[in-house]
């Protein structure tokens, strides 16, 4: 076979792939997922690993169906999901409402920054679980302490990105707009918002991802429902099928949330995606 025909074959595959609007990267992603699933089936089928560590896929599927229909410790899967999502979204939306304006102010005024920066920088690296112990003492065992922990986790990426966005505004744009006779409102609408939004959007994505990782910590103490709690509780009873099922649901939900934020990013800053 000559080089030319190999080249032709390649181009025809590429064309066929393009016809289905599937990029080679998407194919690679799909292949990776299929390969990992096959590996899981094989390991389980050949009994190469202790089922306690890696239960066979059918057990995990059965756990999914059972928890979806009959529930786990009093709540069905959808109720666990709603409990977790409402905690995450409450904490996250509150953090957006507080963190973004605060960050913008911190970026515009060094005095505001001097007040808030040390606080945020101090608690930001603290392990969420350590922080949570204190929050339980202060705020109790109800949802307030859980939502507060998620709020605190969501806040730093938001303020930091908003602060950087505000500081990064090109003064030339501001001067130019002022020269052209822009009022305060126009300056805000046509210079500030478009200049800051991209960085803020990135911060919002990072923040949501980070908030999500704190979920299990937030649900460890005194929760009776929630995906994080379900995984934690099942691990105490060595129910690894429920643990893995819970982790898969957590992972997929996280992906879905990230997808939504990216969609919002596209809608808010369309010029970056042209």
């Amino acid at each position: 076979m000559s080089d030319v025909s190999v080249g032709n074959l390649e181009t025809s595959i590429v064309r066929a792939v393009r016809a289905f609007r599937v990029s080679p990267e998407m194919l690679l992603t799909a292949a990776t997922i299929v390969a990992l699933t096959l590996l899981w089936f094989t390991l389980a089928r050949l009994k190469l690993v202790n089922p306690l560590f890696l239960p066979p896929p059918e057990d995990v599927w059965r756990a999914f169906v059972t928890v979806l229909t009959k529930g786990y410790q009093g709540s069905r899967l959808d109720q666990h999901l709603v409990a977790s999502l409402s905690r995450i979204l409450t904490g996250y939306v509150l953090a957006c409402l507080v963190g973004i304006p605060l960050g913008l102010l911190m970026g515009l005024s060094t005095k505001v920054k001097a007040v808030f920066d040390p606080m945020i920088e101090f608690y930001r690296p603290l392990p969420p679980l350590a922080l949570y112990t204190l929050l339980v003492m202060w705020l109790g065992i109800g949802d307030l302490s859980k939502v507060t922990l998620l709020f605190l986790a969501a806040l730093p990426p938001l303020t930091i990105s908003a602060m950087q966005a505000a500081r990064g505004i090109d003064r030339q744009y501001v001067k130019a707009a002022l020269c052209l006779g822009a009022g305060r409102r126009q300056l805000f609408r046509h210079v500030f918002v478009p200049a800051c939004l991209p960085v803020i959007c990135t911060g919002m994505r990072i923040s949501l991802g980070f908030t999500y990782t704190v979920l299990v910590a937030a649900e460890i103490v005194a929760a009776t429902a929630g995906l994080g709690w379900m995984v934690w509780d099942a691990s105490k009873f060595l129910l690894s099928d429920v643990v893995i099922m819970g982790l898969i649901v957590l992972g997929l939900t996280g992906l879905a949330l990230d997808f939504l934020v990216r969609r919002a990013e596209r809608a808010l800053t369309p010029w970056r995606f042209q």
Partner: protein
Amino acid sequence: MIARLSIAAALLAFAVWIPTAAHAEDKPAGITIGYLNLVNAQLVSKALGLHEKEMGVPVKWLKFGSGGDVNNAVAAEQLDFGGVGNPPASIGVTRDLHYQAVTVLNMLGSVEALVVRKDEHIASLKDLVGKTAAAPFGSTTHYLFIVALRNAGVTPTDVKLLDMSPSDAVAAWLRKDIDAAYVWEPSLGRMVQAGGEILLDSGKMAAEGYPTWDVTVVMTGFAAKYPSYVTKFVKSECAAIDFWMTKPAETAELVAKELGLPLDDVKRMMAGTTMVPCARQITADYLGTSAQKGKFVDTLVATATFLKEQGRLPAVKERAAYERFVNPSFLEAALKP
């Protein structure tokens, strides 16, 4: 670089060590013991270095907050010996953890109790309906709490039962977030001091036919490879129990130092915990003998059955699995003159 070298050295040691293990019995390079945050003779062996003396190997002690955490460490093969109560042991055996009970650590008495808030006027378990209570899920107290509620004719789900470690429960108690908690000392004592009274304790539950206890477990793989070292380990545990029984004052001081607690607390905790001398451990009430296993097997089966009813375990295993778990043979060997 040094880290990498030491990993390589460890791998090499591992590779050399596997083939030789099949021949004569080797000496373990060291042992790791996962111990519970409880007051029992294990703390004496730890403080006096009894295992090091008897076995001649370095000992690493890892502290665990509950038997459930020990189970997870066992599943991850991080321990050689550990301590678990009967509920974690039932869970472990039912979920195929490879370990065996070799000695009785302690029988639980008033060291674990159900404490209720005085100002809530809770005179019986029935008064707990609609109240908020806490217990560490998967532990002995969680198990006894639900058993007690059920026996008193209360549907366990009518009480808002929350999963909390004893120390978290103290915080929630001080904030008046919870009205009751079934936990162990020293957290229990703090709650009693802060407006609590004892409604029920594990000693009372034992008298009603629901004994709870903790046992020392050894990994099955370790026991197969180093049987004589397990016997040595059991010997030093027995020596620690003897020390506890004959020298209570010295023991209290050792334990207080070990846990960093006031002497009075320790004395109260020691009074609420029963040690079983090794010679008695191989009688029918405890582990029994290799030929005729004791009542601990019944407790394990009863606990597993109960956890299954509560939707906590998918299935209960055949009795033989729990009988295999209780292994008095090392104790029998250690007791031979």
